[in-house]
């Protein structure tokens, strides 16, 4: 089992560390030749979605990865990653992979002074420490999208087919359960 982490910008090392603690091998995707390697799951980490979205295209990984996600490649997306997956952004004309039928608001809790920590509940996991850093939230979802967590009435984690996405940063916590849930969703028993 090998997980590929998009490593064009942002907190990709934190995801790699998380998987390494779980005994899972990771590789980094920084340019087109990287995506031809074999991997079983994809991680879209936190960072700046504008930068990541731009580099994805200009370093020629966008089409290849989008096709893989469409074909069912399991994806774990956090914060900026959620923005990359969202079909629509309510306060931005851009969209990126647009494979997740939700509408996301960028910087939805405001600037850095609006960043916060919250002990919320994730469906299937229970109580979980959530770090929101200039975070987005999900405004609306298509009916077939499963809502996994909400904070003050805002949707912050969802699952849709092969895509698992959160507005917060499980990779910054010491808690492996969200990453475990991702692996369990496709790991052969």
């Amino acid at each position, binding site marked *: 089992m090998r997980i590929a982490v998009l490593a064009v910008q942002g907190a990709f090392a934190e995801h790699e560390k998380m998987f390494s603690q779980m005994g899972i091998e990771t590789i980094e995707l920084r340019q087109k030749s990287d995506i031809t390697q074999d991997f079983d799951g994809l991680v879209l980490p936190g960072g*700046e979605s504008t*930068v990541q979205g731009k580099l994805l295209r200009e370093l020629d990984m966008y089409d290849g990865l989008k096709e893989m996600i469409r074909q069912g490649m399991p994806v774990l997306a956090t914060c900026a990653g959620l923005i990359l997956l969202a079909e629509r952004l309510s306060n931005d004309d851009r969209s990126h992979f647009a494979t997740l039928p939700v509408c996301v608001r960028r*910087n939805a809790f405001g600037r*850095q*002074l609006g*960043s916060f*920590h919250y002990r919320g509940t994730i469906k299937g996991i229970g109580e979980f420490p959530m770090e929101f*850093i200039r975070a987005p939230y999900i405004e609306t979802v298509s009916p077939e999208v499963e809502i996994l967590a909400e904070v003050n009435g805002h949707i912050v984690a969802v699952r849709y087919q092969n895509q698992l996405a959160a507005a917060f940063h499980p990779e910054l916590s010491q808690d492996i359960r969200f990453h475990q849930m991702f692996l369990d969703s496709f790991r052969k028993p």
Partner: protein
Amino acid sequence: MKDRQYELNKELAQMLKGGVIMDVTTPEQAKIAEEAGACAVMALERIPADIRAAGGVSRMSDPKMIKGIQEAVSIPVMAKCRIGHFVEAQLLEAIEIDYIDESEVLSPADDVYHIDKTKFRVPFVCGARDLGEALRRINEGASMIRTKGEPGTGDVVQAVRHMRMMNSEIARISAMREDELYETAKELRVPYELVWYVHQNHRLPVVNFAAGGVATPADAALMMQLGAEGVFVGSGIFKSGNPRKRANAIVKAVTNYTDARLIAELSEDLGEAMVGINENEIQLLMAERGK
């Protein structure tokens, strides 16, 4: 609650890693920077090269100009205050800046004390030439560090010197016996706990960027290969012939900092780099401000 905010502030710096933070002086430049792939912008009235040329006292920028930039872009906006000028910092916090740079680029307001950054909710980044400076700033509440380099010169030599100095001191402390850490804490004038953290983790407790004198994609990749977690580019972009193209090339060079073939391609036809001044030609060493 305060500690919680400090954690969140360190985490914002983690999100900036692998990215380029660009100095901008107008909303138009901020837009160009964002489109070129900057992960944040530093709003300031004059870029360091112009501050150097103009001389005189250099202060925090006009809040209206900073707000204009905040409105123009969706990425984090940083701004500089003078070393020790905690009221300038209060003003920047009041307009909800995402990061304050307590910066040697501006004229210091206090030649003894830095700002007590633990009194703020908004995060601070500070410059450092060596490990002692870095840990002293962290002890005062900085949640991100950058090398000082020598701003506004286009000469990378000092950024390299500062990064190497920091790395070699981290290596030295990592190799020490635990009973030697107490003396090191005294030498560096920092609490034992910070020295112990470096000893255990072989790194600073916060994210560390390179800054000061980065002018080309190769400069940026050099700093990344030397261990920087991201790069600040000040005068290097908007003092060059083709800012948009150069900014874009530096961003990609930071992402693929070990791919020489790609960086060579990126370095083609960038137009004129900022002219630059050599270290020994300058009168004013900004890096000597605030130790």
